[in-house]
């Protein structure tokens, strides 16, 4: 276990290094990406831009720029090019909304995904399976901005059941927190529920043909006992790995569309704004944050694997 953790820590460092270098380089080569021109604004003359370039250090060699930016990130002083605000402070401000979105939606999409997967597998080929399959495909095909717009228009504007967007901290009002988040949770979950239920359905159908499931029936267990004790536990691994990755992305600010449509002011929305401005420092930090969560959740998923299946050993 200790070895596993140490190895994963090294993995985090490696992944963060590679991701940060790649992200940094991408913004050096994309067209119209010169930050000095953006900071200078539309009417800046060449002298002003050269002046900006010198003050911000854009005229230094690229590896110096990279090292300087990384130093600022880890000392917490990095500022965005476009607004000059402290990036880490902005992310910290957005994190409660993003965490609330991720945790609530993560629970909903995991629970409903598993539930629908089990139902469709057990009723495979019958009407309820087909109906839910069609629904799952519709869910998978609906982008969050579309579903979100529908929810805000019909449930918010027309029916006035939910607020029109925004985020209220839990500490301010738990009721308001919930009513502002319920629609984003569901909208974000729909896609994942569709995918998870399809994946689990097919894994369950495969597992049901395993010899040990036949043994379970031959032992005199009921269909329900066979399903929950033997089939389901052996079918959960793909869904759990999916969940780890998806949850990590959302918590790292990946739910850009949902956060923007519902105006949650979370990390994802900050990422969206920064991408529009081609603002490298926030994008760099958010990308690294997402990568960090992906590696972290990957380790958690591996630990859960080992708990679920004794044949799997933690080796890093």
């Amino acid at each position, binding site marked *: 276990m200790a070895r596993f953790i140490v190895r994963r820590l090294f993995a985090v460092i490696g992944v963060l290094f590679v991701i940060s270098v790649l992200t940094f380089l991408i913004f050096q080569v994309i067209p119209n990406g010169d930050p000095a021109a953006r900071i200078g604004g539309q009417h800046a003359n060449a002298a002003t831009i050269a002046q900006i370039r010198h003050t911000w250090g854009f005229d230094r060699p690229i590896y110096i720029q990279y090292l300087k930016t990384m130093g600022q990130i880890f000392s917490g002083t990095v500022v965005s090019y476009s607004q000059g605000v402290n990036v880490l402070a902005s992310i910290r401000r957005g994190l409660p909304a993003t965490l609330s979105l991720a945790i609530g939606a993560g629970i909903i999409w995991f629970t409903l995904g598993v539930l629908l997967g089990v139902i469709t597998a057990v009723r495979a080929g019958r009407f309820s399976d087909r109906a839910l399959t069609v629904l799952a495909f519709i869910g998978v095909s609906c982008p969050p901005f579309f579903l979100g717009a529908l929810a805000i228009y019909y449930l918010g504007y027309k029916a006035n059941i939910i607020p029109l967007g925004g985020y209220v901290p839990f500490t301010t009002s738990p009721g308001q927190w919930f009513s502002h988040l319920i629609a984003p949770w569901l909208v974000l979950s729909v896609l994942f529920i569709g995918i998870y239920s399809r994946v689990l359905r097919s894994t369950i159908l495969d597992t049901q043909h395993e010899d*040990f499931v036949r043994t379970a*029936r031959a032992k*005199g267990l009921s269909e329900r006992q066979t399903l929950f004790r033997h089939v389901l536990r*052996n079918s959960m691994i793909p869904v759990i790995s999916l969940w780890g990755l998806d949850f990590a992305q959302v918590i790292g600010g990946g739910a850009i569309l949902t956060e923007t449509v519902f105006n949650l002011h979370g990390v994802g929305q900050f990422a969206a704004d920064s991408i529009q401005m081609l603002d490298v420092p926030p994008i760099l930090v958010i990308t690294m944050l997402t990568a960090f969560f992906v590696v972290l959740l990957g380790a958690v998923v591996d630990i859960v694997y080992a708990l679920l299946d004794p*044949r799997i050993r933690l080796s890093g």
Partner: protein
Amino acid sequence: MAPAEPLLRVEDLRVSFATEEGVVQAVDGVSFTVDPGEVLAIVGESGSGKSVSVMTLMGLTRGPNARFDGHAMFGGRDLVSAPDSELQKVRGNQIAMVFQDPMSSLDPVYRIGDQIVEQIRAHEHGISKAQALDRAVDLMERVGVPRARERIRSYPHEFSGGMRQRVMIAMALSNSPQLLIADEPTTALDVTIQAQILDELRQLRSETGAGIILVTHDLGVVADIADRIVVMYAGRVVEQGTLDEIFYDPQHPYTWGLLGSITRIDRDRSERLPAIPGLPPSLLAPPSGCHFRTRCPHAFERCTEVPELISRLPEAPEHLDRCWLEVEAKRSLRQLGDQIGLATGETVIS
């Protein structure tokens, strides 16, 4: 004299499955009985319907595409038509089953002990977990698992194939079944382990008095354990009789072929191991008449009619077969040198 009521009486069992290509008649009118303390071997190639027959007794072939006919009377109950809820009480309790592949027949994610306990507690609701674990240890010791008290906490992947099959047998015995069905229990094991597992089964029969159905494709396996043998081919019983009758006076050419293909150490090593030519027929469209006629070197016109499964030997009324050949012709045709076997070339019958 057979006892008044056998432990199990299977009568005219028919099982068919609807598939995309058509209806597969997997079992086509199979009848046999098993007495308490008796070992009945069901022998045949893959696809002969032997596994489907015994799994049907447990209700394990039931499904939306399966059709069943006939009866299987066990303890006053018809296993073919009994509702699932009733069969569930019989499975793993009065009738238990050991499967072919011990590597995949145990759930990889649970400890051995818990899997045995699960079966005990599925049928004995009052028993505590500790009591059930004690019994599981006893059972494992009985089937020859060393250090059973410790090994009960192991997972299946920590056991060898032979040990896993012992666990499967221990599990099958956990509720003292009256009938044990062993479906190819030694096929996936090394030869030395095979002998040990057969020893266990033999010992069991004498200790518990349970009836045993042993399903196998290998007549060699049944030679020193079976009391009676049922030979199946393409869904039908082609011959049945006592061990001696089948080994020393086999009536059906398919049985000759099976006997001829047993590996024997007294055979000249330069000889090729005889095999039955051709492949078993497709059960979607089996040949008319005798199903074996397309592979039988002794087939003649009459074989296009289905021969009945009857005794053709006045001295052995329980020795049944499905072959039109005259008894005297059979006795000469099956003799290849000093051994019984199926001739490979065409043989003209006068």
